[in-house]
């Protein structure tokens, strides 16, 4: 009898007690799974909205804001026809919301992405504004956490894509990417926390060799 009652309490969700974080974990795990499968801009925008709903409902957690912005950044990289300024404007607002809750290095990777996407719209005229914004974000993030694997990965890729004669180069990039991979391996990823980029960093390294 008591057992049935307990079971029943569990079944009905007993939403009041420990349900909140479980609901949060379930929702986030589910959305993160969808995020890894997402392909189209609509997928990304849908997920961004989903993360944002979690964020506004939870009020105090930076991760859902982070992923809401991250989803839009992914759309920005994959969709050539997307209005980068509108996308970045929305994304940067989400980044600001995340930063207001937790000023941590991880979030600056997103500022870097949005600013870079905006700069690439018209580099000659936008370099002075968005190019510098991107560089400053990366620098600030790395200053706060020099061993952040994702920031090192982004920095390494930027170097790889810049020709040697222009201060970049594959060898310089390789060193940073190798460091990034080392940081990825040493990192203990907390549940639901960002862990992207390791595979890409390893692939980029293999390509260089």
């Amino acid at each position, binding site marked *: 009898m008591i057992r*049935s009652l307990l079971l*029943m309490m569990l079944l009905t969700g007993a939403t009041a007690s420990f349900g909140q974080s479980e609901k949060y974990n379930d929702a986030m795990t589910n959305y993160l799974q969808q995020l890894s499968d997402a392909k189209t801009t609509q997928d990304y925008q849908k997920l961004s*909205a*989903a993360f944002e*709903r979690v964020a506004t*409902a939870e009020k105090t957690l930076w991760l859902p804001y982070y992923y809401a912005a991250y989803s839009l950044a992914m759309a920005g990289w994959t969709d050539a026809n997307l209005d980068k300024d509108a996308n970045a404007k929305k994304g940067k607002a989400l980044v600001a919301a995340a930063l207001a809750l937790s000023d941590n290095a991880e979030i600056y990777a997103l500022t870097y992405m949005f600013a870079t996407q905006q700069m690439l719209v018209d*580099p000659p005229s*936008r370099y002075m504004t968005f*190019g510098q914004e991107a560089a400053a974000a990366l620098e600030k993030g790395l200053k706060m956490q020099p061993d952040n694997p994702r920031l090192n990965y982004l920095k390494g890729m930027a170097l790889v894509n810049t020709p040697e*004669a222009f201060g970049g180069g594959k060898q310089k990039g390789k060193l940073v990417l190798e460091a990034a991979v080392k940081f990825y391996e040493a990192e203990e990823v907390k549940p639901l926390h960002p862990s992207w980029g390791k595979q890409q960093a390893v692939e980029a390294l293999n390509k260089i060799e």
Partner: protein
Amino acid sequence: MKQLFTLLTLLVFKVSLSQTTIDGKISDTKGRPVIAASVNIKGSYDGTISDSSGNYSFETFETGKQIIVVTSVGYNTVETEVVIANKRTTVNVILKEKRNELQAVVVTAGAFAAGDGKRASTVLNTLDILTVGGGNADITTAVKTLPGAQQVGESEGLFVRGGEGYETKQFIDGTMVDHPYFSGSPNVATRGRFNPALFRETVFAAGGYSALYGQALSSALILETVDMPEKTEASIGVSPLFLSAGYQSVSRKKNFSWGMHYAYTNVKLYFELVKQRQEYFQSPEFHNLETNFRWRTKNGIIKFYSLLGKSKLGVKDPDIDSLDLKNVFAIENFNWYNNISWRENWGGGWKTSLGLGFSYNSDRMSGALETPQGNKVLLPGMPWESKNFTLDKTETLVQIKPVIEKKLDALNVFRLGGELWIASDKPVFNDSAYPLRDHLAAAFAETDIYLNNDIALKIGGRYEYSSLLKKGNVAPRVALAWQFNKVHQLSAAYGIFYQKPENKYLYFRQPLAFMKSTHYILNYQRKLAGRIARIEAFYKQYNHLIRQTNFTGYNNGGDGYAQGVELFWRDKKSVRNFDYWISYSYLDTKRDYLNFPYSIHPNFAAAHTLSVVLKRFFLPIKTGFNFTYSFATGRPYYDIRYNTATAQYDIADEGRTTPFSNLGFSLNYVPSAGNPKAKTFLVLVASVSNVLGHDQVYNYQYSYNGKYREPIKPPAPRFFFIGLFVNWGIDRTQEIIDSNL
């Protein structure tokens, strides 16, 4: 047990109840679907975004009274209270568009903007002006690749839509620039005095511009200076033509900056290497000193810019009326241009701007006849008498222009302002003085009315009074713009424009009035990322133009018209790393003014003008290549003579020049492009005009007796330039790299 069962069934019932579907449609006030709007239940995780038809649907476990929140970028957020009870609840929501400056339509009729891209009419950026092939970083040369401007090479200035060069005025931070071009010799166009890098934004208005600007019958070139430089830097420039050095300092907090730049130009060496048609006994020499200060105020900025210029040249031409005499022309110029502008935002939608200008210009010219041995000769009678002269011309202009702006809501704005020009011109021609003084006062008002983000109306008016003419005028201006799908845009503009006659007609103290033009412009623009297409049709009516009745008699009896169609196409997307634009202008114009015997096609207007600008940067060789090709059909030329018997002007001879064709080329090599953190930045620029060596004839001039005519040509078939520019502090290499990633 029974109780437990009841409880269980109750619970099951409750669960089945909670699985409610909420669906509906999100549309805007015009019934169009809003795509990707976010819909959710306040405080819960449940929600979704609308699809491409504006429809949405999601499931929720929430019940009872809930708040549905709908948000979308560019729209006001809507919160609707619903009671979730049934299995399916439909909530349709209408979103109202936010009035937003970035989304809102901007009038593009007549205007081409080059700048930071924040304006909807932006088609070029500052770098584009610097890198027009063969343009040698001259603003006017770059603007000539846009529709509406003529390829006139025998005189400086922008000849726009059948207008004379003086019908285009340049404005820096709101105030008019009196002498925007260097002083030179007759029949040779000179460069502009201002470096394009000074400007954050350049708007070329080929007509129909705002009531804030006056005294330009045809066109306004509106230049806005950079607010605060990015970094402290030092620079030098080395070329066979000039040497320059500059320093620009910016305070750490970026709230104060100052800078100085000096350039010395002497073309003696160049003229020895590249033969010129004329013989220069004083090769052109220029000193240019620029000074600037900028202060950030609480919510605004004060900018001061000063340009001190001194130049001289002396040239000999074979005299057209004699076999072996030479015509000697010499000029010394001193020019001091000062501009102070103060912009302040007072909050509550109130903004002010104040423009102050002071300029001083002195030209000392002389003409003489000389024998081949170099001795001066004085011959009696015409035409000889007019060939020995001295002209000392001293002009000052003081300008004050305050403008108050009140923002009524997000978009609707009202502006009110005034302008005072105190001008003095003191020419002394062969010991006779013809001093002129004029106080031109103007008041203007303008309002931007937005019915919504897609429909805008600009209504303005301007009143002017000239103490010299003793006349006033009222000039209404109206512009309308309508955009659909943020891609297509239709604009129209109408306006009346007045301009004082040129001083040379006022020296003789005849009662003259303002010249007048009326513009009608219709414009269609299609703009997608990286591509822009524009078509514009215009009609311009000229009235009260200056007519010459005899040698020194003038009245306002002239008139004329100009009409045409212009196309512009730019594409930087179709081919990677490759950018090009094409401009075409068709112009039909006739005017009856000055000594024209009747209404004729003026000699500065070509019927068809085409410009193609190509740019490409090759990363492996660190070199950019820029080509500009311009073509214009032949222009008419006339020999107009005064017939003393009939006391009228007659056309004694006329014809049409060969078409104009010019291929300009420039390359910029960036050898130093070291690492992005390099403190030294180096760029080598080389350019040549008229690569194909086309024999350009701009016009013809006739001998006094009309028996001989001579073509007006450029001083040399080609112009070559090579220069090395070095900067310390600021690095522009990254700009060049990133533009090619």
